[in-house]
């Protein structure tokens, strides 16, 4: 058995190449069925996202599978294989399994640890399942990949730190307030960016939203969107001593919130933290406010800085994830190879037993009448002999199961014992 992957990703190919390999959503099942129908290919699955396209096949002969796969790409998929050769990567067997696991665990993603990829792999699996193109070891492999991805997510912090700016704001709010339930949020300037951040905060449990905007109508529009409250500009300071988070993104040329204005607010708040997110350029919030007690001002660059630090943390966690992947590759290889040698083992045992019974029958006439004890003894002797003969090939096949030469060894055993495919 061998597993082969041909693919291209954001790491190897620019988007104009990737898009020509991507599967059109409505033809995904048809195409994977065509691929699986090519000679030499036993099972197939195709993963196609905006960052990568992967063609995974299982075959009993590696070379045959690769040419079949290429023919498929040329003739069925009409992908420009020849032009794309420098962008394509090819993984076989152990490396292929490792690749599937790494992709599903989001270790090969553009943003390491992003969670969407697992869902996309699951979709590809479902499509192939629907098309009936996975039913054996490849099925086992992909289900194992889901398990590995779960393990990586649970045992490492790879997906824990926010890496996009609006999520970083939510994460910082968590670092300040713990849970966000019941938090009150004030939005100054109803732009697109503040909308995204507010949406994340509300998703995380923030309760009350106030919107202040230069044009009151726009404030009302956004307030209805979040079931919040549009407030007029003159109530701004009253709100500042009440809310927990401020998101500011006005188009104002100068500071909307100055240190002079916020100093009395700081003492009125009596040490309750206020988190000010300034996503406006030019900035809305005087950075000096950060030096006031329990006031935390983050502008767009600060958020970016946190995002980068988080990404660095994620990469550290990725090292641990790679170890988990390697461990799981060994496990699954062993299991799949074991699964593959099992029919041969059973066949070997049956053939030898048939031989044994035939030989006993052949000599029965020469032995004459036998007492039950003698019958038993002959049975025991021949059984023991057969078992001893079969012992070494069976244990060797099992232990060679994870080995690259495992398949060849199985072939040799088959030849020696004259086991024909049934």
């Amino acid at each position, binding site marked *: 058995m061998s597993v082969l992957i041909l693919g291209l990703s954001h790491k190897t190919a620019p988007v104009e190449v990737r898009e020509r390999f991507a599967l059109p959503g409505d033809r995904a099942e048809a195409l994977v069925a065509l691929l699986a129908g090519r000679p030499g290919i036993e099972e197939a699955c195709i993963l196609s996202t905006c960052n990568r396209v992967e063609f995974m096949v299982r075959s009993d002969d590696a070379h045959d599978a690769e040419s079949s796969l290429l023919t498929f790409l040329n003739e069925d998929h009409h992908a420009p294989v020849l032009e794309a050769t420098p962008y394509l990567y090819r993984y076989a067997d152990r490396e292929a399994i490792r690749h599937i696991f790494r992709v599903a665990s989001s270790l090969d993603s553009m943003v390491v640890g992003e969670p969407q990829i697992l869902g996309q792999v699951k979709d590809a699996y479902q499509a192939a399942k629907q098309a009936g193109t996975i039913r054996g070891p490849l099925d086992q492999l992909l289900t194992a990949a889901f398990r590995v991805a779960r393990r990586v997510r649970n*045992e490492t912090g790879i997906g824990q730190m926010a890496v996009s700016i609006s999520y970083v704001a939510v994460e910082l709010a968590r*670092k300040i*307030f713990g849970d966000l339930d019941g938090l009150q949020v004030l939005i100054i300037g109803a732009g697109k960016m503040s909308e995204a951040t507010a949406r994340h905060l509300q998703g995380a449990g923030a309760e009350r939203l106030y919107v202040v905007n230069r044009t009151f109508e726009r404030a009302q529009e956004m307030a209805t969107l979040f079931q919040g409250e549009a407030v007029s500009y003159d109530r701004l300071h009253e709100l500042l001593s009440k809310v927990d988070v401020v998101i500011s993104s006005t188009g104002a040329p100068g500071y909307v919130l100055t240190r002079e204005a916020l100093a009395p607010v700081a003492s009125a708040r009596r*040490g309750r933290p206020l988190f000010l997110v300034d996503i406006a350029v030019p900035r809305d919030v005087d950075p000096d406010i950060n030096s006031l007690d329990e006031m935390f001002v983050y502008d767009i660059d600060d958020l970016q800085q946190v995002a980068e*630090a988080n990404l660095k943390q994620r990469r550290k966690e990725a090292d641990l994830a790679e170890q988990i992947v390697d461990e799981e590759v060994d496990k699954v290889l062993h299991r799949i190879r074991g699964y593959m040698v099992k029919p041969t083992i059973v066949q070997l045992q049956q053939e030898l037993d048939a031989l044994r019974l035939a030989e006993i029958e052949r000599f029965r006439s020469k032995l004459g009448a036998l007492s039950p004890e003698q019958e038993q003894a002959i049975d025991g002797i021949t059984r023991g002999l057969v078992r001893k003969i079969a012992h070494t090939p069976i244990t060797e096949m099992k232990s060679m199961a994870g080995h690259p030469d495992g398949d060849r060894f199985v072939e040799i055993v088959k030849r020696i014992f004259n086991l024909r495919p049934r």
Partner: protein
Amino acid sequence: MDSWGVFWLRIALALYSVGLWHALVTVVQQRPKTFLAALTSISVGLFFHAVSIGAEIWQTGAPPVGSLYEMASLTAFLITSVFLWVYWRFRYESVAVFVFPIVFLLTLVGSLGAPLQPWLQHSVGSWWLWVHVALFLLGFAALFITFIAGVMYLIQERELKSKKPRAFYYRLPPLRKLDQVQHQTLAVGFVAVTLGLVVASVYAASHWGRNWIVDPTIALAFATWAIYLAMMFSRLAAGWRGRKSAYFAIAGFCGAALTWIVNRGAHGFMQP
């Protein structure tokens, strides 16, 4: 074996060190799963610690506050208990990393001691005194956690102000939660210490008249209590939170630690 109390205490000590090690791994390497091992050894350690204190009481027939060693052991026991309570309520592993070095040290001190001659004469060793000492030590243990949470608050606050996430940012609890830990442990600590003061004052007044009030160690105890009183007021009445409150917690604990050190044995005025 000099004493069963010390024997069980050494077992508790070993378990605490295992717990401390796992807590360190949990927090430094950010492996939350490891904390279960830490929690288990700490809890089992606490059980043997209780056995140790029980054995000590049974052997000496006196409250386990008769020597520096016993006091250290009882303090460690109470700190661990308060820690488990706080963990049960808030689930922040990083607190353990700050708390357990001290618990380990106090237990180590406690386990060094074969019972020496006790400080208290039996005539003085009334159960009222034991209640007074136990309340103080419970208060001390709770206020120790307040102090730790205050220190953690200040560190995390600096991390957030600096805007450059470093090791602490990822490992310490959120600010508001640290504030709540301070709030709750302060409440427990303050009530215990106040009750301890009341019991002690009533008992002292009935035995030694009024001379004890001018004793400097007693004055220190009252001064410390005043700091905590101020902290309680600023929190409850004025609603102050945050950095100022954390500074209070640290100042108060410095006073409390000093009081603990100078009041290890019998007070001066108690000498016949």
